[in-house]
Each structure stands twice: as C-alpha cells, then as structure tokens.
C-alpha cells in the first residue's frame, strides 16, 4: 500500500508502535531462536522440481506436456524417413525394415499413446479456446469438441483409406 499521506505523529516520535509490545502479556510459549516478534510473513516456496506431485491434476498436465517428447522424436523419425525416401528405393526399403526392430515397435506404441493423448486433450480444449455464440446462446462446449472428434475420425479414415489400409 502506498502511504504518501503518512507523517510521524509528534507524540510517539514516529516509532512504529505495536500493541501489546511492552505491555504485560499472558505467559507465552518460549520464543524459538531469535524470531520473537516481527518475523514477518511466511513464504512457502514452490518446490521447483517436484511440485507436480502435489495434485493429480498436475500429473495429468505433465503427462500432456511430456507427449511433446514422443511426438517430437517421432517427427525426427519422419525426417529420417524422408531422407531415406530421397536417397532412393533401396535406402527407403532398408528404412522400412529397421522399423521392425523391437525398440521401434515399443517406440511406436509410446508415440501412438502420446499422440492420442495429445489429440484428446487438444480437442477437449477447443471449446475453451474457441467458444461460439450463435444468437444469444453459446454452442454447448461438448458440441464443439465433439465436432472436432468427428472431423478427426473422418480424416483419419480417409487417410487410412488413401494409404490402402482398407
């Protein structure tokens, strides 16, 4: 609070005067080391490396953020795929073969889970980021998110179809 109006009262010579100080007190618990009076507010630091264990919602958030590691890594895989594609058929087919390693399969499982989790959280967020007001009422949020899910499913099926999966 700014206190431009404050002047020292002549009677007390400007001493900050605490009530009770210098006044007979009831017996108090013994003061802990050197902190009797005026210790000031207690600042409770946020533990910078472990705060997310405080609540499940933070773990869910961190899980969402961690998806970026797998998605990012997968994008690197795509760049490598492009490199092999550019290098010719032999190189590309060798690349397809390397995909079959157990490590690659495990990575794909993780990447798939991450990508799906990202997609779900992203679509759920659309209703918050882009609310739509039609006339007086807002379009129900579930409808906005739901529309994204539908579009996503359709797009995925088209891509799978074009890729010749079915």
């Amino acid at each position, binding site marked *: 609070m700014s206190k431009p109006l404050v002047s020292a*009262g002549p009677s007390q010579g400007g001493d900050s*005067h605490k*009530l*009770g100080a210098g006044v007979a007190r009831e017996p108090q618990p013994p003061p802990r080391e050197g902190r009797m009076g005026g210790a000031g507010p207690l600042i409770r630091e946020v533990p910078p490396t472990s705060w997310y264990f405080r609540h499940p919602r933070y773990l869910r958030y961190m899980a969402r953020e961690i998806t970026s590691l797998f998605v990012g890594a997968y994008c690197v895989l795509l760049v490598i795929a492009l490199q092999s594609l550019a290098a010719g058929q032999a190189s590309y087919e060798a690349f397809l073969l390397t995909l079959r390693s157990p490590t690659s399969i495990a990575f794909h499982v993780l990447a798939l889970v991450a990508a799906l989790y990202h997609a779900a959280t992203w679509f759920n967020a659309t209703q918050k980021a882009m609310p739509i007001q039609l006339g007086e009422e807002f379009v129900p949020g579930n409808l906005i998110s739901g529309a994204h899910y539908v579009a996503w499913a359709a797009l995925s099926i088209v891509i799978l179809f074009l890729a010749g999966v079915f």
Partner: protein
Amino acid sequence: METISTDVVIIGAGGAGLRTAIALAETDPKLRIALISKVYPMRSHTCAAEGGAAGVIKPDDSFDMHFDDTVGGGDWLSDQDCVEYFIREAPRELLQLEHWGCPWNREADGSVAVRPFGGMQKKRTWFAADKSGFHILHTLFQTSLQFPSIIRFDEYYALDLLVDDGRCQGVTAMEMRSGQLRQFHAKAVIIAGGGAGRMFPFSTNGAIKTGDGMAMAYRAGAPLKDMEFVQYHPTGLPNTGSLLTEACRGEGGILVNKNGRRYLQDYGMGPETPVGKPQLKTMELGPRDRVSQAYWHELQKGNTVSTQWGECVMLDMRHLGEKKINERLPLVRELAASYLGVDIVKDPVPIRPVVHYMMGGISTNTQAATPLPGLFAAGECACVSLNGANRLGSNSLVELLVFGRRAALSALEHIQGLPATNTAALNARAEATQLRIRELFSRTDGTESMSGLRKEMMDTMEKNAGIYRTEEGLREGVAKIDELRERYQRVILTDKTNVFNTDLFQMLELGSMLDCATAVTVGALARKESRGAHQRLDYPERDDKNYLRHTMVYHQGQDAPRVDYLDVVITKSPPGVRDYSGDHK
C-alpha cells in the same frame, strides 16, 4: 503512533463507502481520500444482496408511485422529503452504474430489464440475475481502481472517532496485519460501515455485520435513530440463514404451510392469486414485515412444517420450470442444493424468516449529515429515514448509491474553509483509544468468555426483540443486555499477540454489537405501538398520535442511554392504511 493526514476519511468500503469515494474523487481530484475497511472492499456484505435495485425507468411507472410504495411500505415512518430526494436520484444512480459497466439484465431491445418486488405496485427493480449486490459492489470496486486519489487502507479496523472542538476530525484504526494503531486526521469523516444483523442468531448477514460504524458514532455522541426496526426477511435457509431472494416470489414462487395452503391470504394479503401469476403488492409480493409476521402466526397455530432444522414453511418454485430458474435464480438454486440438499426445480424448499436489515442506524438528515458536525453516514449503518418502519426490498441497494454520493457532496461542502486541526488535541484523543486497547491486553481479572457472552446476546435478541415483542420480554431484554455490557468489561482476551488477532477483533465487534443491541431493545421498549417491523403483542395498533416520531437513542457512557424523539417529516402523504389486499388497481 503514526498519523495519516487526509481531507476525508471514509470508514467502510462496501457499496456506500465506494460510491462515496468515487463521488469525492470525481468531484475534486486533488482531494486526499482515505478509504478504511476491516475487509478488502469486495468482501463487503453488499456482495450478498441478490434481488435488485429499484428506480423508476419504465414509461408505465412514475416517481409518485415509487414514493407511495416506499412511504406506505415504511408504515409512514419515512421522512417524506428524504423519500422524494431518493426516488428522483435513484434512476440517475442506476444509470451511472450502467455506464460504469454493471451487467444489468436486459430486454430484447437492449434496454434495462426490471422485475417485480415485494410491496411495489410496478415492476421497477433493476437486476443482474440474482447477484445484483455482488455486481454492484464489484462494479463500484473496479471503477474505484481508476482513481489514484482514493487511497485504500484495507483490513484496518476502525476504533474511535476523533472529536475535538465539537466536530469530528478523524478516526483511530488498527492495521490488522501488524496490530499497529494509526490515527487518521481529516476534515470530514463518513461512516459507511453497514448493519448489525449479527447480534441475532439467525441472520442473512455475513460475519462482518457487527455494527462497528453505528457503535463508533454512538459512542462519539451521535444518536442512533429508529433502531427498534429490525427487518426479518421472510425467506432464509433454516440452517445457515442464507438469503433466498425476494425475487423467488417476484418470479412467481409461492409460500405454503404444512397443509399446502397459501396462508398469506389469511393475513390481509389475499385473496389468493393464481399460481405462477404473481400479482404486484399482494400475496407473496406483500411487504417483508407482513410476510414474516404471517409466519409467526402460522407457527402459533401449529401450521408450520417440522424439519430437522426446526419449524419452517415451504417456498415452492417448481412451477417456474428449470429454464427460468437457471436464468433468473441460479444462485438460489445453488444455495438450496448445496446447503439443504433441495433442488428447487423438483421440490419445495423449507424456509423461515431471518434477520436481514436494520432500518435504524446513525441518525442522518437528507444531506447524509449526522448531528455531529463533520460526521456523515450512508448505507445500512445510517438512518436517513428513507425506509421508515419497514424497508421495501430493492430500495437499499439504491439507498447506498444515492446517499453515498450525497454524503460525499455534503462532506465537500463541509470542508470548505474549515479551521486547521488542533493536532495536539487529536493526539490526546487517539491516546485514549490506545489506552483502551492496552487495557484489553493487560486485563488480568478476566472471567467472561467472549463466545459465551456473544451467544447470550444473540439468544436474548431472538427471544426478546424478535418478530413480535412484549413489554415484559423487552424489559427482560433491556436488563439482560445491560448485564452483558457490564460483564463485557471482564471478557478475557486469550490471544495477546499482534498479527491478525481475530480474537481481539471479535471482542471489539462484540462491544459494538452490545451497543447496538442496547439501542434496539431500549427503543423497542419505549415504542408502545405496532408499526412495520416493530410489532408489540401488547400494543397491536399503530399509534400516530404518540409515535409518528423517530426514536433517538443517545449514549451515556456506562449508564442507561437517553431516549428522545424527532418528528417525522410529512410533506404530502398523511398516514393511511397499508393495503395489500390485491384490490389496488
């Protein structure tokens, strides 16, 4: 002790205090304004007001009608020059709030919407869903943030007015977070400290409504006026006392007893109107005093419903339908659901009358000035004699705007050309406060428990100064409150530390409430008639010959207060019959 020198000090930063501060800052930007409050402004109890604010705006309405409703609703105890000023200023103030951003509900064409309210013959209550007070308070608070000359002292507990040379020149206050005492010197002081409903056990009022402002003015020599008029709101939750707004009935909710009868028709508010078609100024839209009194009679007849929370009547809103309830009464639905487990869409909700509002307060005139020069008051803590013996719902939110601004203008007038403050004299007064507080800390002979005393006070007020009163009960009440005031001198302060010592503040608040309780009981005992919210079983009729007057209670130290009277200002409406029979046009 630090001294803070200002031009104007405002005590209380709720609706009235903020409106005052803004009016001062707008009128004279060079003014130094100290806004002191024991809570952050948005915690003030204005935020709990639900229904709305009355002001003539629609073409089918008129100032005369608002005047008649207010004067009749107040059982002719209102000062009519005050009512006249109020009704004319009301629309301007409500529009001003609109210009500051208040989210009033709207008609399809974009104009402000109005709803019906108890005792009003026209729809004239502006509303923001059922959070009108909340929106008014936040609009005022947020608007106030743009004025650098309003310097807030949040969480400062005001203690004593500084009076010298026959005029009020400041106040002492304690910074709650440090326990430091400060004195504020000013040319004018405006009290906007709210009501004192907390002296009753069942109240819609928040914990902060302890009458500190009223008591402070009273102790400084300003009289308290018409304190015996305590409004019971007919529809409170029976367990927490939380308010279910009058708009429940305004929108069409009905009150029924255990036999399913709409009993209001038996108490001069009939004949019955069709369910879901509320008619203005009759049945469920009768005034609060009558509707609350009808509950008491039903209770005597054994017509109330026994619930686990005590005797109740039922408020039935099922016929309004879910859509309307969600749009107009979302807070009511939420409150009933969470605190009682009742969904008002599916079931009637048990309710009972609860103490809601003090018609009385620091005596002020239409200029918002108290008899003590330099001291002004506005809002619930003041009794400008707008509400008379019974306030109409939705007049108080406007009252705090109209008279908050008025207090600012009067204070500005007052401070022109005032002689310099005698600092030494004020310092001496401030030190008296300091000694008073020190005594609480050093008291060693304390024997009384604070919460015990508080409970005794509440029980006394409920039992002896409730909806219906008697000579015998009031005598007992006066004696009991007197005894409690004496025992208060021996209350123990358990917590003797400095920082945010709520033990200390609750003790000081108890002192304020006891002062207010004295004025209520003494005033009620002296008024041997029934008028508005003051109902005497032994004097059931209104007595205009002897009591068309305001009760004025003066503090006399530890002695019994002095009671005096002041004539009511009648300009054009002689006392008449309050008619809520539904036969009006």
